[in-house]
């Protein structure tokens, strides 16, 4: 019986142990400076950490191998970008309408990558524990790489199409881009734990598929291999990003019971903030991809209701429940993309991308994907607009919309229970009335009114004269929007003229 077991050999160190030996004790203990002064942001959010070493390193990577991996990824990506340019890949996309999805990506998403770089660099300095600090520092470099590779990839399309020429300037000024900008600045100006809950958990983990799948599969379906490739390149970093999101949530929930309600509040807030931000993706998916992948409704069901459902089922063991107002998102899935597109359709004279009325074929697809809403509520509207356009009276809305004080989206969403009534909430704070698009945004304001009363709301700023002038053309100049080319309907745009020119040249070649 007591014969030695041949399997009880001298054990090789596991990867985790090797990593621990490599990194252990590298942080220094301050002797002449108070630790609180070195890490001033650790405590004020109310998160209690008793043992920083209990943080599980979400990935075990050395700087040396990091550079090796990333350099290899860059080589592959830039080879694809070069061949795409050499083969005039821009001519082989499904339709020039597709480029409008890239216009949204480069002005609304790529600047977020850069903002994420700044955010992670900041918390990568300010976390007291060495584990999360290193994880954040790696991610800060990743995000910078993502912003750069996206700008490099899409710059090829800028040689041919409008609206792609000044994304970072536009991000800081254009009215609808204040939606992603304010989202991220809300996260960056929060404490380090809230920042990670907002970005690493809610955005990178819970909602990431809803952002990346539409863009990357959309690119693949529509012949844009360059964008697909930067998507893959970025997604291969996501393993670290998503795992950081999960680990930081587990870490907070396990370290102290008092952290649970704080984390729940942040999950509620950042679910709603992220979901509202995705309204622009919903519209992109359904309306801007000439070859469609799946509807917004299907994507929401697959990635949030099912995937997120499993996650929150597991999180319930910590006492965490599904985010507040998830049922509103469920009720809105039949309407979200249609209401967003309808709004941008009316304001295309002031946007850096084009809109159009959907084709009959697309409307048939919408009717099939949205049987509960499309034919009853949205088709009549498009029919009406198409007729006005045919009569030479393409509808543009010259009024300025009421923006939500929190998400900064025009208050165009309808009541979850009644899609014929606009949802508006108001709140008087210090004698001033504030407006919101939903209960979700109202509650976020109510929790931190002093933060959100500082919101830089584009419409208010225009009316106060802070945006280049008092007329629409002056404001658009201030946005660096190339008027007559970047804006208005796709029909009649230089993009359309160029595309039709390429198509007819191709037909001539085939005919000759």
């Amino acid at each position: 019986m007591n014969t030695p077991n041949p399997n009880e050999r001298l054990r090789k160190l596991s990867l985790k142990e090797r990593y621990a030996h490599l990194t252990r004790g590298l942080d220094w203990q301050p002797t002449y400076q108070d630790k609180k002064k070195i890490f001033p942001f650790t405590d004020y959010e109310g998160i209690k950490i008793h043992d920083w070493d209990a943080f599980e390193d979400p990935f075990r990577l050395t700087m040396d191998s990091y550079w090796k991996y990333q350099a290899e990824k860059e080589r592959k990506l830039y080879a694809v970008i070069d061949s795409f340019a050499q083969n005039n890949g821009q001519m082989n996309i499904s339709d020039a309408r597709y480029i409008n999805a890239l216009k949204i990506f480069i002005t609304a998403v790529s600047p977020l990558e850069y903002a994420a770089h700044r955010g992670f660099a900041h918390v990568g300095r300010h976390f007291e524990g060495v584990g999360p600090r290193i994880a954040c520092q790696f991610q800060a470099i990743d995000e910078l790489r993502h912003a750069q590779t996206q700008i490099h990839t899409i710059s090829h399309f800028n040689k041919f199409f409008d609206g792609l020429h000044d994304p970072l300037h536009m991000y800081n000024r254009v009215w609808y881009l204040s939606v992603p900008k304010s989202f991220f600045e809300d996260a960056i100006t929060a404490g380090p734990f809230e920042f990670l809950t907002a970005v690493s958990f809610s955005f990178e983990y819970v909602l990431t598929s809803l952002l990346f799948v539409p863009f990357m599969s959309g690119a693949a379906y529509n012949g844009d291999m360059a964008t697909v490739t930067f998507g893959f390149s970025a997604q291969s970093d996501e393993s670290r990003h998503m795992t950081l999101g999960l680990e930081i949530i587990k870490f907070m929930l396990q370290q102290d019971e008092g952290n649970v309600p704080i984390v729940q509040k942040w999950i509620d807030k950042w679910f709603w903030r992220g979901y509202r931000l995705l309204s622009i993706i919903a519209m992109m998916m359904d309306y801007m991809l000439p070859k469609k992948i799946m509807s917004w409704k299907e994507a929401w069901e697959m990635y949030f209701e099912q995937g997120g459902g499993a996650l929150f089922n597991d999180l319930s063991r910590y006492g965490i429940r599904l985010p507040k107002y998830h049922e509103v998102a469920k009720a809105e899935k039949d309407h979200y993309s249609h209401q967003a597109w309808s709004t941008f359709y009316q304001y295309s004279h002031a946007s850096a991308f084009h809109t159009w009325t959907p084709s009959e074929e697309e409307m048939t697809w919408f009717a099939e994907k949205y049987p509960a809403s499309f034919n009853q509520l949205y088709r009549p509207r498009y029919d009406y607009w198409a007729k006005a356009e045919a009569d030479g009276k393409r509808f543009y809305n010259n009024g300025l919309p009421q923006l939500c004080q929190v998400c900064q989206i025009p208050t165009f969403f309808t009541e979850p229970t009644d899609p014929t009534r606009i949802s508006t909430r108001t709140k008087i704070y210090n004698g001033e009335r504030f407006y919101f698009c939903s209960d979700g945004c109202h509650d976020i304001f109510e929790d931190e009114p002093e933060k959100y009363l500082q919101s830089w709301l584009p419409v208010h700023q225009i009316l106060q004269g802070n945006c280049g002038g008092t007329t629409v053309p002056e404001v658009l100049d201030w946005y660096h929007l190339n008027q007559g080319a970047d804006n208005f309907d796709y029909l009649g745009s230089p993009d359309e003229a160029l595309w039709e020119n390429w198509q007819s040249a191709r037909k001539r070649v085939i005919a000759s």
Partner: protein
Amino acid sequence: MTYQLTIEPLGETLAVEKGQTMLDACLRAGVWLPHACGHGLCGTCKITVLEGEIAHNEASSFALMDFERNEGKALACTATLEADTVIEAEIDDDIDARHIPIRDFRGVIEDRRMLTDDILGLWLRLPDEGIDFQAGQYIALFVPGIEAPRSFSIASPPSQPNLIELHIRLVPGGQATSWLHHHAQPGMELRFTGPYGRFYIRKSAGLPKLFLAGGSGLSSPQSMIIDLIEQDDPLPITLVHGARAPKDLYNMGLFQELAVHHPNFRYIPAVSGDISGWSGEIGLVHEVIQRLYDGRFEGHQAYLCGPPPMIDACIMTLMRGRLFEHHIFNEKFVTPADAEQARSPLFKRI
């Protein structure tokens, strides 16, 4: 067609169907590997192939680059086997694991006795040095006329390598268990392989232990508790055994006797259904521990064995009471239906 997959540093071996991904096979067998996207894009499930042959399939060339393929890396979520294979994964080895080689055994039934109306106790006599195992592990028993073996935990302690005890619940409609209930007789020979499983005592943590058993899930805890007591482990041990009716609480005498002689051992039988004539604890196991510990479990180690709903309810209660995955161990015999239940990558084992 199946191949054998061995996962280092665990030393665990499992069968993988042709065309089945390594990740799928591991998760179904209860071996957790790091994973996230599940379709070859993110690289979270990267492993190293030490021996054997695999196909990468749909692994993204960014998530798994050419130089990594040359170095023997693969993504478990897309890779399938082309031969018997050994991999090394980024999982924690455990200093309490003994990595005992799996062997084939022939045992002769020495005794059989009904422990309750539907649980059969079976004792198998083994020749020579017997079976080496860690308390809590199970065997795969071949039942005559039935192709696939069935898993049963060993209820006797490792100090009895030549006589092992099994608790076999009659599964309604179950071929193997009904054969055993109706035909197993002393003198018969039964074939089995083992020992299997990663449900064993994590002694190195030095914490008080809480054993939660439901129905015939008493088998592993029985082995573990007797083993601890035989080794004079001084730390507190609590056993909560839940059943529907008092008559289903088998081996009560054994545990009452142990409790009398070993003050560090506490035995709490509990009844959740028919309580007539019962003066002990009432309720499901998770309800009983909630009361007993006032909902606080920090500083313990919990070992769970029983039907999946009982395990899930107990994990919820323990975690709400601030005892986390690191200190919770369970043997949940995973049925295909359980494996298909949607889970997130949040937890590794529980």
